[in-house]
């Protein structure tokens, strides 16, 4: 009797281990392969059967940084993602707080409007933006891209921070009011510090959406103003062999910062990615 149960639990354990191995393999092998390829010399990328053991080289990274002048595109990426995130956080926290504390009609309509702004298909948003930027003579400049990123990061930040502010009990703020603070001071001195995790989550996700964007950047930037995702795909152009080493090196370079950001906010990741629908 006892032995039978042991056999069963061992079987269960083996099944679970196999399943976990399968899961890890399926979801993480492509990423592992990206890293591995970024350290390969060209001939090792084209080898069949594919090789796992080879002498790693940093040539792809140095080529990417020194020869292709990627630092410029890196700064384009950093500027557009960073500035749009800061603006979204600053204005979104004000608006989110107003929505959480204010009692006024039309709140639901504002919420609905914001969610559709954030949901709008990128293929559709590109069309009017393209012509508007053209007529304002800012097409192919960084400000155009920043404006495009604000168009989705600001509603996202407002919506998400609204949810975070609602978790702050208003009694704490009322205590602040008694001490003779203005409403804005209550917001800045009491409410804002209390939603620090919310600000971090919102900021990291806003940055990620802009940093990872390809469609807006590929339409709204030129060779000088291109961002890293555009550069990564530009390696594919032309008829020569694809320099996969540099594609994967650029990919790893893009991936690592957002992965670290994601790990930092792991507790609120689901809340953020579902726009606060799941706590």
């Amino acid at each position, binding site marked *: 009797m006892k032995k039978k149960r042991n056999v069963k639990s061992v079987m269960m354990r083996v099944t*679970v281990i196999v399943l*976990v191995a399968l*899961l*890890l393999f*399926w*979801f*993480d092998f*492509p*990423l592992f*392969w990206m890293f591995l*390829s970024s350290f390969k010399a060209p001939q090792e990328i084209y080898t*069949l*059967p*594919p090789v796992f053991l080879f002498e790693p080289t940093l040539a792809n990274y140095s080529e990417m940084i020194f020869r292709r002048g990627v630092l410029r595109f890196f700064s384009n990426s950093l500027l557009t993602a960073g500035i749009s995130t800061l603006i979204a956080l600053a*204005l979104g926290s*004000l*608006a989110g*707080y*107003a929505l959480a504390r*204010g009692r*006024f009609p039309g709140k639901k309509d504002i919420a*609905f*409007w914001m*969610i*559709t*702004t954030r*949901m*709008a*298909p*990128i*293929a*559709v948003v*590109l*069309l*009017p933006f*393209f*012509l*508007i930027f053209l007529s304002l003579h800012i097409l192919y400049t960084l400000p155009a891209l920043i404006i495009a990123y604000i*168009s989705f990061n*600001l509603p996202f930040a*407002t919506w998400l921070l609204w949810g975070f502010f609602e978790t702050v009990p208003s009694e704490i703020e009322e205590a602040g009011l008694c001490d003779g603070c203005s*409403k*804005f001071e209550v917001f800045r001195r009491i409410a804002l510090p209390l939603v620090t995790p919310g600000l971090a989550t919102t900021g990291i996700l806003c940055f990620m959406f802009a940093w*990872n*964007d*390809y*469609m807006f950047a590929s339409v709204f930037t030129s060779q000088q103003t291109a961002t890293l995702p555009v550069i*990564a795909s530009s390696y*594919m152009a032309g008829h020569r062999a694809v320099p996969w080493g540099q594609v*994967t090196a650029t*990919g790893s370079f*893009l*991936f690592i910062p*957002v*992965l670290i950001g*994601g790990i930092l906010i792991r507790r609120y990741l689901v809340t953020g*990615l*579902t*726009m606060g*629908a799941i706590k």
Partner: protein
Amino acid sequence: MGKRKIPVEGWMLLPTIAILAALSIYPFVYLIRMSFMEFSLIPDQPSRFIGGRNWLEMIKDSKVFYSWMVTLRYYFISLALQMLLGTVIALLIYQVKALQGIVLIIAAPLFLAPVLVGLLWRLLLDPSYGIYFYWMNHLGMFDFLQKLGFSEVRSIFGSTSLALPAVITINSWQWTPLIVMIVLAGLMTIPPQLIEAACIDGAGSWQRLRFIVIPLLKSTLVVALLIRTMDLIRFFTVIFVTTGGGPADVTKILAIRIHENAFRFYKLGYASVLGLTLLGVTIVLGMVFVRAISRR
């Protein structure tokens, strides 16, 4: 009382409302105007109003209907696959508590830029040196498909029968982990006493799942479904960099057709008409979403 004072909240909300009006209402009106125009590539020749001709063209264009069919197929299969797999994986992790540490590890694809997702899978599936193509070939998958009557597979993204399954698989590779995380978050809210009580009453594990866990997860699953639907409609980058809508239009979802009309053929007016129909669907879904989570 002369005029009413604007409360502080109004001032706090004002900048965001003003900016969003400029970035969403104005472009929307602009888009409607574009849909009645024809744009010219020649600088001297101005764009002109052509009335409802773009709209008429769309109705007559059988390719648009075909694209909607591809779009729906792409959405439905992706959603079904991700919801099912995600829920099963989440239940497994929930059952075996020691596994909770792997959630973030399997969620890593979420953070990879969509354009890199496309490029990376092009590397993996390349017919001459891609490791996945190599493995699939050695496992006899392509021989098997040929025995089933499919034509010889020379490249996955170039195959009319495999291109759509491939882009659906890639999308699911990146996004199933999100469903896992959402469902796990939902499972955590189920009070353990409820499950214990069912155990005492003699409910087997299938009955507990069927009559307690699944019904309690319903609202969570609805949110997961809506979130994924929204993103499926919004993004098209992976298809854009892998198949570009081909071969023979089998992966040409509407978003790809809009982009192609606008930025390859420069038929911006016609693209706007297609865009407005897609936006219409988005707005309806937005209403459903807001209603589904109307916790506020």
